[in-house]
Every structure is written in structure tokens, then in C-alpha cells.
């Protein structure tokens, strides 16, 4: 569906682009909103998980008899209680992660679970389960895990293009790019070679995973859970439990953050297995410690960069080798990092090589532009260092090399109209760029890119008898999408926003909807909402035509009403949506519009971030003084929400750059599984994050929408590292830049 025809050079919006009240605000601030842990059922049991204390161990036996005998215990499950069904490799990994089979692969890996009458009984029962482990050597860091003699987690999981002789933990290799790196480097006036490292971080959502499962003796099952994709939960759990998809109904609760971490399952299959075995509803709520130990952080990385630049700032060659560990199973987002690393730049000679590596850590899950932030950290730091060595302006260097319409991207695609140059020029003209800096203060800039995508989407739009509107869609709202859908429906129908309510359906009420991820919802669900509204308008015009006794083609929809149009239409007073709704039963029945689509045409999105920091030379502590995000949104449907996405991505990037890391002991046990020691930024740590929304319309959407939720986390790691490096007078190449690390860097130079 192409960008709509323009009126006077721009689309003429009445609702889209305004800042209406959010529909979930009152519910969330009064406690009325129902999150994953807020559902109950009569006869409900409490489910709890027993987790491995070892980073790597063979499970030689599990004796659950004492636990089963404890009064108040209704079921105990291990891997043996899951049905023996054929699963594809990815789903098998999910099952093995939810409940270990032969081996525990990380500290916190689930090995058994109980359902009991209360939490205290469940906890007592866990202690009665006797697990015999044969502890095995473990490996934690990515570069160690790649070694040929590293303890191997799996056998036979290397894909076909991994070269002979690589260690068993190296499971995939990717390569992208074009041109001749060595020839390009030979043309440079300066060549930089550096290694950059980042630690694993968690998405840090406030709401722990929680679910309530019920399985009837007839095999029909219901699951309530917090998730970014109730259809993904249904399809994964149905496969694991051997159910047909239509027999399992999954309802998504209100969600307290996801950021990619809730695009898979951890406790849901276990809750279903306990519910099936006990014959009772089972509720499971993870503790914070469990969330950090046993859900899906992002990968840690080790990245080598080689880059050449001429004295006037032209990048002559860019090479990156990226090594990502994604935890205990294949699937780190290294290929996304490898594709996106140089994406903002127009390079004649560019190559990226990515290695996917497993290690004895929790199975990674997506985290907002998965794989891209670490890659951007390395590339943007190198550009910064080279530019400064050549005494060049950081924004001018980026402008000189910026990708534009017609550029062949490093990952192979030729770009259509894109917004990178606009973000750079806007940044250069912004007062932040010319604001003075004081002692021990530095300014950093960096660019970022994300793909965004569309996907399977269903929307049903119903006109109620009183002339108001319900939009039914299937994507949990993690960024204000209900408001956006209501706004787009109101825009199309020509009715006030307040007359539209958007709700999120369970899996039985609409066809397949892909997960809320990939910055896809405002784009794809919006596109389907617009089409559903247009279908409803066509039906309402048809009803008006019936009433007026004229042809359907002689009726148009304008400003919220059906109107006669054309020379032979005759004179008829307009019929509003409410007028037509009131006589729907008399004119053919209820009025609705719907759309089912695999949406394509999502536009890529670029951002430039600018940040000032101050470094305390005595402690190494870093303070964020000022932060500005410049990002292309295509069309900001609700600017408050778009600004919120920009700010949220920046703040998560700040935590990733300065504080957050998974810290393991020598024994491979996670040392900081709690928010006291895994320190995320809170509001009092930070200044206001300023935002500038640019709008270069995406031709693939009727309103020009581009996804925005992920691009905003791509630049901050590098922007902050560039700023701190300037403030501290020493190049920082490893994250997080915690005070001891910064202090040591200052002291050693």
C-alpha cells in the first residue's frame, strides 16, 4: 500500500501527528491495568522452578519422590514429563532451555518444577528434589569459548560453513560486504586497528515474566501471560505440548516492558505441563533473580575493526570481525550486527565477518535492534578516533561518508530515500552542537541504523450501534500502539479520536499476528488498521447508497460522513457514521471492516545521537550532562510516544555503556542477579533526553510511517564512549565504562 496522494505537498492530517491522551494511562497509574501476575483462577496452584547451581553439568539423575509426597504438592515435572514430539531445531532449543534434558548448560538452567497449594509449600518441595549432577568444565567469555580446546556445550551444532578446525562452540559464520579491503586501506592516510568489547546486558523490563495456565481434561488449554507475542506463545507451546494451535488460547496481559526479552517463552510450557499433570490452574511468577539468571540477556561481544581514512575524511575501507556469544544455544544476533555495522556509510570497500558462539550462559533473547548496538559501538568509535587523529569535525566526517538514496549498503541493498543526512545536518545546526564545554567534559556523536520490518497482521474494525468504533488487533502494546491505531482509524473515518477504542485480542479472536518486535507495529498494524477502516467506509457508503436509492459509485466518504458525489447523485443530506450505524440492522446487518496481510515495505531508519559527559578524574565516575536524539520517524503518528521511544532507547544505551554487565565468578555463577548490583539508570541519574523528530516519509506506508522503537538504542554506546573518551583524554574501547575502568584508563593513559 503506497504512500497516499499528497495535498499541497504534504499529507493533510487532522488526528495523526497530534498529542492525544493515551488510553492506558489511567489504568496504569491507578493499578487497574492487569499485568501477567494479576490473574487468578479458582483452585489455582503456585508453580516454582528448581534451577541448576552449576554453569555446566550432566544431570545424572533426578528423584522427585520426596517432593511429590509432600502435602500440598499436586505435581512435579521434569523433562521426562514433556511429550515426545518432533520439533524443529529452534523449538527444541526453546524446550531444552525451558527444562533441561541431559545437561544443565548455565547457572539457573531449569531442571524441575513443582505446583503446590502455596508458595511456601512449593519452595519446600523444591528442596526435596534430589538432583545428581556431574559438574563439567565451563566457559563464559566469548573469545575463550571460541578456542578449539574450550569445554564444548554441544556436539554437531556447527552449520555447514564453519571452517574445519574451529572449536565446537563456534556454530555459525557470516560474511557481508563488497570491494577490496587491502586495496582500500592502502589508499588511506591513516589506518586504525582496534579491538572493542561489550558485556552481556539485560533488557531490564520492570515486570518479571508471569503466567497462569489451565489445561482441561479434554485437552483444551488457556494461558494468560505477559508477552510480546501471544501467537508466538501459542504456536511454541502448542508444538512443545503436542496440542493443535486452535486448542490453546493465549491471552496477552498488559505488559510492563519487553524490549525483545519477551519474544520467546521461559515458563509458559512449564506452567502448561504442571497444569496438565495436576489438573489445576497453575500460576508462575519469576523473581528478579530468576529473570536475570534464566531469561534472555543480549550477547556479549568482541569486535576487531580495521579502518582507513584519508586526510580529508574519506573512509577508504572498513573491516569488522564480530564475535558474539549468545548463551548456551546457537542464535546470537551476530549476523544482524555484521549486516548493520557499516550501514550508515557509503563505502567502496567494506567487509564484515561474524561468528556465532555458544557459552555457559543463559540463552540470549532479542534486545532492541539485536546485534546492532555493539557493532555500532566499534565502528563509530573507530570513525571518531580516526577523525580526531586527522583533526576533522566528527559530524563532517560522517556527512562526507553518509549513505544516501542510491547508495549500495554494506549489506548489499541499494537505499531508497533515507533520513541519515537529514539527522546529521539537523544535529550540526542544533544549539547542543555549539554549546560550550567545561573542564573534564567531552562531547560525542554517533550514528545508528535499523532495518525494521512488517509481517503477519490481522485487524478487525467494528462500528458499534451507537456510532463509536472498536479496533481489534493482535499485538501487545509496548510503545503506545493502541493510541496510534485509534488515531489512524479516527483519521481514516473522520471521527474524533475519543470515539475509537482499540483492544488487543487473544489468539482465538483474530488470525495470526507476528510478535510485537522489529519496530513493526505502528507500521504493519497501522497499515492493516487503515485498510480495515477503508473497508468499513466502503460498506457505509454502500448503505448510504441503498438509503438514497443511488449507485454505490456515486457516494464518497468525507469528513466523517457519506456524501453524494457526481452529477447524477441527487441532493441528499450527508449521513454520518453514527447515522449509518443506527440503521445497520435495517440495511444489511452489522458493519465492520477487516484486513489480513503479510505487510511488507517497512522503511529503514537512521539516527544521530549527541551527548555531553563529565568525568570525575578522581573516581572515574561519569555524569551525563546533556543528550539529544535526532531520528527519522517517517511520520510521527503520536509524537509523545515517538519521543518516548527515542528517550527509552537512549537511556537503555546509557545503562549499557556506563553500568550494566553480567558479572560471573570463577565458578561460572552469576554474581549480580538483582537490580542493586545490576544497576540500570533511573530517572534521577539522568538529565532530560532531548529529542528531534525528523519526518522523511516511508513510501511503503500510506502515512509515511517508519518504525522507530529500535534505532534509538543503536548509537548511544558509541556516542557515550566518544564523549567519555574526549572528557577523560583516553580512548575507551570496552564497555561498560564503570568508574574503576575509567579511572584505570586515565591512570594508565
Amino acid at each position, binding site marked *: 500500500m503506497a504512500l497516499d496522494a499528497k495535498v499541497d505537498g504534504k499529507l493533510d492530517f487532522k488526528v495523526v501527528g497530534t498529542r492525544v491522551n493515551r488510553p492506558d494511562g489511567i489504568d496504569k497509574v491507578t493499578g487497574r491495568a492487569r499485568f501477567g501476575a494479576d490473574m487468578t483462577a479458582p483452585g489455582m496452584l503456585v508453580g516454582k522452578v528448581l534451577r541448576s547451581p552449576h554453569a555446566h553439568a550432566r544431570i545424572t539423575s533426578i528423584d522427585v519422590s520426596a517432593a511429590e509426597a509432600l502435602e500440598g504438592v499436586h505435581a512435579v515435572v521434569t523433562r521426562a514429563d514433556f511429550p515426545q514430539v518432533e520439533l524443529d531445531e529452534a523449538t527444541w532449543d526453546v524446550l531444552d532451555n525451558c527444562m533441561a534434558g541431559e545437561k544443565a548448560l548455565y547457572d539457573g538452567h531449569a531442571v524441575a518444577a513443582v505446583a503446590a497449594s502455596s508458595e511456601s509449600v512449593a519452595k519446600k518441595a523444591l528442596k526435596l528434589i534430589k538432583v545428581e549432577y556431574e559438574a563439567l568444565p565451563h566457559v563464559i567469555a566469548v573469545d575463550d569459548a571460541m578456542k578449539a580446546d574450550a569445554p564444548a556445550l554441544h556436539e554437531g551444532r556447527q*552449520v*555447514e*560453513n564453519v571452517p574445519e578446525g574451529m572449536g565446537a562452540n563456534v556454530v555459525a*559464520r*557470516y*560474511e*557481508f*560486504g*563488497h570491494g577490496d579491503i587491502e586495496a582500500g586501506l592502502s589508499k588511506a592516510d591513516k589506518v586504525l586497528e582496534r579491538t572493542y568489547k561489550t558485556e552481556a546486558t539485560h*533488557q531490564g523490563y520492570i515486570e518479571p515474566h508471569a503466567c497462569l495456565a489451565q489445561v482441561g481434561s479434554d485437552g483444551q488449554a488457556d494461558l494468560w501471560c505477559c508477552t510480546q507475542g501471544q501467537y508466538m506463545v501459542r504456536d511454541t507451546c502448542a508444538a512443545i505440548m503436542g496440542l493443535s494451535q486452535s486448542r490453546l488460547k493465549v491471552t496477552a496481559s498488559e505488559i510492563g516492558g519487553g*524490549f*525483545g*526479552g519477551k*519474544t520467546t517463552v521461559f515458563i509458559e510450557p512449564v506452567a502448561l505441563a504442571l497444569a496438565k499433570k495436576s489438573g489445576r490452574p497453575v500460576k508462575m511468577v519469576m523473581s528478579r533473580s530468576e529473570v536475570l539468571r534464566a531469561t534472555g540477556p543480549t550477547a556479549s561481544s568482541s569486535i576487531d575493526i580495521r579502518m582507513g581514512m584519508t586526510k580529508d575524511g574519506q573512509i577508504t575501507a572498513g573491516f569488522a570481525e564480530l564475535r558474539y556469544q549468545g548463551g548456551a544455544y546457537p542464535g546470537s*544476533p551476530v*549476523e*544482524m550486527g555484521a*549486516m548493520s555495522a557499516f550501514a550508515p556509510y557509503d563505502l567502496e570497500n567494506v*567487509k564484515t*565477518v561474524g561468528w556465532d558462539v555458544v557459552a555457559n550462559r543463559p540463552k540470549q*533473547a*532479542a*534486545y*532492541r*535492534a*539485536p546485534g546492532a548496538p555493539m557493532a555500532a559501538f566499534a565502528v563509530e568509535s573507530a570513525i571518531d578516533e580516526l577523525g580526531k587523529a586527522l583533526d576533522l569535525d566528527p559530524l563532517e566526517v560522517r556527512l562526507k561518508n553518509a549513505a544516501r538514496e542510491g547508495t549500495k549498503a554494506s*549489506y*548489499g*541493498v*541499494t*537505499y*531508497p530515500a533515507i533520513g541519515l543526512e537529514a539527522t546529521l545536518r539537523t544535529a550540526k545546526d542544533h544549539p547542543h552542537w555549539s554549546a560550550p564545554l567545561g573542564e573534564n567534559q567531552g562531547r560525542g556523536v554517533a550514528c545508528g541504523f*535499523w*532495518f*525494521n*520490518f512488517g*509481517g503477519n497482521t490481522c485487524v478487525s474494525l467494528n462500528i458499534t450501534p451507537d456510532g463509536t468504533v472498536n479496533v481489534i488487533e493482535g499485538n501487545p502494546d509496548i510503545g503506545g500502539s493502541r493510541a496510534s491505531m485509534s488515531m489512524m482509524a479516527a483519521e481514516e473515518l473522520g471521527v474524533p479520536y475519543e470515539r475509537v477504542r482499540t483492544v488487543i485480542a487473544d489468539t482465538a479472536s483474530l488470525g495470526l499476528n507476528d510478535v510485537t*518486535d*522489529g*519496530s*513493526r507495529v505502528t507500521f504493519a498494524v497501522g497499515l492493516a488498521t487503515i485498510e480495515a477502516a477503508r473497508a468499513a467506509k466502503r460498506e457505509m457508503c454502500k448503505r448510504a447508497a441503498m438509503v438514497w436509492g443511488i449507485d454505490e459509485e456515486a457516494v464518497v466518504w468525507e469528513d466523517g460522513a457519506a456524501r453524494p458525489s457526481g452529477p447524477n447523485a441527487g441532493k441528499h443530506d450527508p449521513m454520518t457514521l453514527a447515522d449509518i450505524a443506527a440503521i445497520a440492522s435495517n440495511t444489511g446487518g452489522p458493519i465492520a471492516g477487516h484486513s489480513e496481510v*503479510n505487510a*511488507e*515495505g*517497512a522503511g529503514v531508519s537512521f539516527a544521530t545521537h549527541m551527548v555531553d559527559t563529565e568525568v570525575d578524574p578522581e573516581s572515574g565516575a561519569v555524569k551525563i550532562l546533556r543528550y539529544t536524539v535526532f531520528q527519522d520517524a517517517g511520520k510521527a503518528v503520536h509524537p509523545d510516544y515517538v519521543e518516548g521511544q527515542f528517550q527509552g532507547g537512549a537511556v537503555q544505551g546509557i545503562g549499557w555503556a556506563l553500568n550494566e554487565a553480567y558479572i560471573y565468578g570463577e565458578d561460572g555463577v552469576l554474581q549480580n542477579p538483582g537490580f542493586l548490583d545490576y544497576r540500570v539508570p533511573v530517572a534521577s541519574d539522568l538529565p532530560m533526553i532531548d529529542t528531534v523528530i525528523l519526518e522523511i516519509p516511508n513510501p*511503503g506506508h500510506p502515512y509515511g510511517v517508519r518504525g522507530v522503537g*529500535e534505532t534509538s538504542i543503536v548509537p548511544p554506546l558509541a556516542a557515550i564512549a566518544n564523549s567519555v573518551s574526549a572528557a577523560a583524554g583516553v580512548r575507551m574501547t570496552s564497555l561498560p565504562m564503570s568508574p574503576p575502568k575509567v579511572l584505570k584508563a586515565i591512570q594508565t593513559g
Partner: protein
Amino acid sequence: MVQVRIWGSLASATDDQTEVEIEAGTLRELLDGLAEKYPGLKPQLDRGVSVAIDGKVYNDSWFTPIQPDSEVVLLARLRGG
């Protein structure tokens, strides 16, 4: 015939070429044609790819038309968070 750009680590399956030609008028014909002409690509194709056609990314839409002069690029399967 359609020119298809293959990413570098797949080239070992296409006689070291990163640009190959396939007879295809739709996305499905493209993927089937690649698997048939270059059986070494099949494991990656089975694991999943995204395809960019004239700058737009497609995941599963089999009957997306491809023109003879379209720019077609195989990408690693896109995923988001």
C-alpha cells in the same frame, strides 16, 4: 533471468560467486531456483532468509513479483526486539 546478490559466506555454495543468475518471476521461484541450482545453499534457505527486492524486504510472500531488472539481495533472516 534475475541477478541475485548472495552474502559472502554463502559464496562457497555458488562457485565463489556473490552475484548469480536465476530464472524467476516470483520470490518462491527465486528461492526454489536457488536451491535447485546451488544445493549447497539449501541448508541456509531452510533455516530462513529475508530477500530485498528493489530495496523492500520480504520474508515469506511467495508470489511477490520480481522483474528481470529488479535488484534482488539475499539477507540473513531479519529479527527484531
